[in-house]
């Protein structure tokens, strides 16, 4: 186990190097000249040269790459060109709101989708299955924007059940007051595909021979489903969830911008609109790192829940 982890961590080094090279090339070749943006419309050649020197753009590419590598390893991407704050502080203040919303959305989605999927899988082919499947398809087919606009208008503006948007101070305030409405809208979009996806895992497991053995033992249907089938069907569910975790960092772009939540998603949009390179570079690298780490974690957890998995 330990030697496996060490080997996997060592394998990350070339991957990370590849990511750095790719990100660097993207920005220096296709990213355009940021000094033109920063110097503003009424620049003189002197100010432009000045800005270029400040950004280190007058240095040879290899030196610039070395600076970038140093930034990655120290996780210090300098200051944001927009707010002039250190990138680290900007992102640190943004990650909280994003995780609060996406984390809550993920947890509630799982708590609803897994039992519902098990239920419809058990009654597959029957009326319950058909009704839920139709509802899922219906919910999936409506655009997220419709839910958001309708939700904000009806639930928040007309009936006053939730605030229309915004963000407060303190984790619990946000979780209990500002998160529920955007989360509900997120659920409308995610539940349909998730239930149908997880349903297929359950249906597949229920066709296995060990289910017949469990019944032949004299176990009740609840026991067969909740013990034997659930444990096996959760294996692919956990894999899917683990793979989606790095994206929690980026946050829910649409929800954050419609509900004015100061999260990562909003920051990504702002940075891209304003060519705020340090922020974009930092987020790209962070997400790449998170993907690598979560992939490793997913494999380790996979080993924990599925005894058949061998880590080689």
């Amino acid at each position, binding site marked *: 186990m330990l*030697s496996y982890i*060490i*080997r996997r961590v060592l394998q990350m080094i070339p991957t990370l190097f590849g990511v750095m090279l790719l990100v660097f090339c993207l920005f220096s070749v296709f990213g355009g000249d940021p000094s033109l943006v920063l110097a503003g419309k009424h620049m003189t050649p002197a100010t432009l040269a000045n800005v270029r020197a400040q950004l280190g753009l007058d240095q040879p590419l290899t030196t610039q790459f070395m600076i970038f590598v140093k930034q990655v390893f120290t996780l210090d991407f300098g200051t944001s060109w927009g707010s002039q704050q250190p990138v680290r502080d900007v992102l640190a203040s943004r990650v909280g709101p994003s995780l609060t919303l996406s984390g809550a959305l993920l947890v509630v989605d799982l708590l609803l989708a897994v039992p519902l999927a098990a239920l419809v899988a058990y009654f597959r*082919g029957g009326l319950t299955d058909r009704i839920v499947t139709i509802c899922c398809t219906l919910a999936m087919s409506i655009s997220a924007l419709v839910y958001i606009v309708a939700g904000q208008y009806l639930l928040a503006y007309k009936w006053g059940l939730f605030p229309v948007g915004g963000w407060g101070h303190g984790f619990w305030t946000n979780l209990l007051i500002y998160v529920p409405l955007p989360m509900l809208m997120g659920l409308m979009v995610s539940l349909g595909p998730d239930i149908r996806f997880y349903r297929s895992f359950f249906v597949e497991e229920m066709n*296995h*021979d*060990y289910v*017949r*053995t*469990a*019944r*032949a*033992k*004299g*176990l*009740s249907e609840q026991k067969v489903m909740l013990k*034997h089938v659930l*444990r*096996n069907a959760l*294996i692919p569910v956990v894999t899917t969830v683990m793979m989606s975790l790095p994206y929690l960092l980026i946050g829910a772009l649409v929800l954050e911008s419609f509900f004015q939540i100061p999260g990562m998603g909003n920051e990504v949009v702002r940075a891209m609109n304003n060519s705020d390179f340090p922020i974009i570079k930092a987020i790209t690298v962070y997400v790449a790192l998170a993907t690598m780490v979560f992939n490793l974690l997913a494999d380790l957890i996979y080993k924990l*829940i*599925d*005894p*058949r998995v061998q880590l*080689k």
Partner: protein
Amino acid sequence: MNQDTLLQVRNLKVSFRGEEGELTEALKGINFDIPRNRTVALVGESGSGKSVTSMAIMQLLPARNTVIDPASQVTFEGRDLLALEGAELRKMRGKDIAMIFQEPMSSLNPVFTVGDQIAETLMLHAGLGRRDAFKRAVALLTEVGLPDPEKRAKAYPHELSGGQQQRVMIAMAIACEPKLLIADEPTTALDVTIQKQILQLLADLQKKHGMSVLFITHDLGLVGEFADDVVVMRHGEIREAGSVEQIFNAPANPYTKALLNCRPHLDSRPLRLAVIDDFMQPGGYVKPGERVRGYEASDEIILDVQHLAKSFDIRQGLFGKRQFHAVKDVSFQLPRGKTLGIVGESGSGKTTVGLTLVRLHQATGGKALFHGKDLLAMSAREFHEYKRRIQIIFQNPYASLNPRFTVEQILTEPMMLHGIGRVQMERVKMAQALLDRVGLPARSLSRYPHEFSGGQRQRIAIARCLTLKPEVLICDESVSALDVSVQAQVLNLLQELQDEYKLSYLFISHDLAVVKHISDQVLVMNKGEVVEQGDSDAIYRAPAAAYTRKLLDSIPTGWQPQAA
């Protein structure tokens, strides 16, 4: 009901409802008894309704599409099992009647330890606590002869071999001292040597616990040694029932005779194996002449394998590696139009030999001279031409055909890859001719693999190889997954094709009787090494190695008089 009768089946009629609501009759009203403390064998081919019978007794058939005729009765100690519901039904399952299945690997839950799975039954029916139940599970594993039971109880199913998994299933089944044990093809997925052990274990447990056993199998030859009564089924009906002595010595029904005769025998090698149809037509079966086998000096050697070796690297520690020698120093010659049989148990390396010859595994040593050219030393480009000339047929006809391809695509794709036939029309014509040759109707072309039975699929796999006009055909356990009756048909087909096209076969199998029937020379392998090699008749007449004798002893001998 007779005091000595444990289970009585009367007029059991079961139908399945198809997707359009049409009914297919699987059991057409069968009657039989299982006496107390006896073993009853229920014998029949796939589709005869034998498994449906056992599932109906346990009420394990899917309720959605199963229709059981209301007049059907299954009486167990005075109770009508078909009328049981809910808690009463669950109390019967696992406690009064327990069941073991064909595929022990998939019948065990992969994510729980085997000890826990046995303990679960005990906690459910015997009311034991977790710790006591686990202790009892270890004792049960000891009883079924699992080595090191305390450690094995904490193992997961995949960490055990097939035979050990089936022992676990048996331990689980006998946990609550059931009065009836239903064994549904419990040894079909196992090697012959393991099969023998499992059958012995079941016979011992039956005597020790005084329970009744309903043994379901497609292989009539298998049950002679331990069953008391035999029920022969076909197409949902009982063809013949009687004591084992009567069935083996004086079978009345032609179908019973057919089943008894389609398994290859060690002491004869007919030109053609008997198949069911031979017995069902008027006039009955006429024994054909004997075939003489063996290599001759005049044979043209087309494949000469010298010191073939294959080892795999197994990772150990951080950077370490360990070598596993799957095949060590195997040499043999294969002449045109002859068959070399490779026999051995799972893990003997026999399959690896076949795979290295078609370079699906890269050999780590030795030569394989095909018409004098070393197959193993060729570049991939050079080998492409030879790929056509050496083809392989795998064991599992369900997994080795692409389920999304029609038979036409399956047959014409290899021809296209190797540039056989100029246009698709021409290839389809050739495919059609081949289908006809392997005994399938031409309309099969537009169908998908799942629409065929196991034997038919293996015929498709054979036809796929023949599309390329190969010279050598490697048959890797190609008939092992088939019913004995279907096995005889496929073996006859292979023999006809060999006579017709002068094909050379490398026939890999764990079943010595089959290998003896089809092979000119035999090579016995154990743990990657050649144990014995020579003319097949000589080896079977006087096996030199102890391992060969062990394999020979595992072959079912049919019914033997008790006095002898």
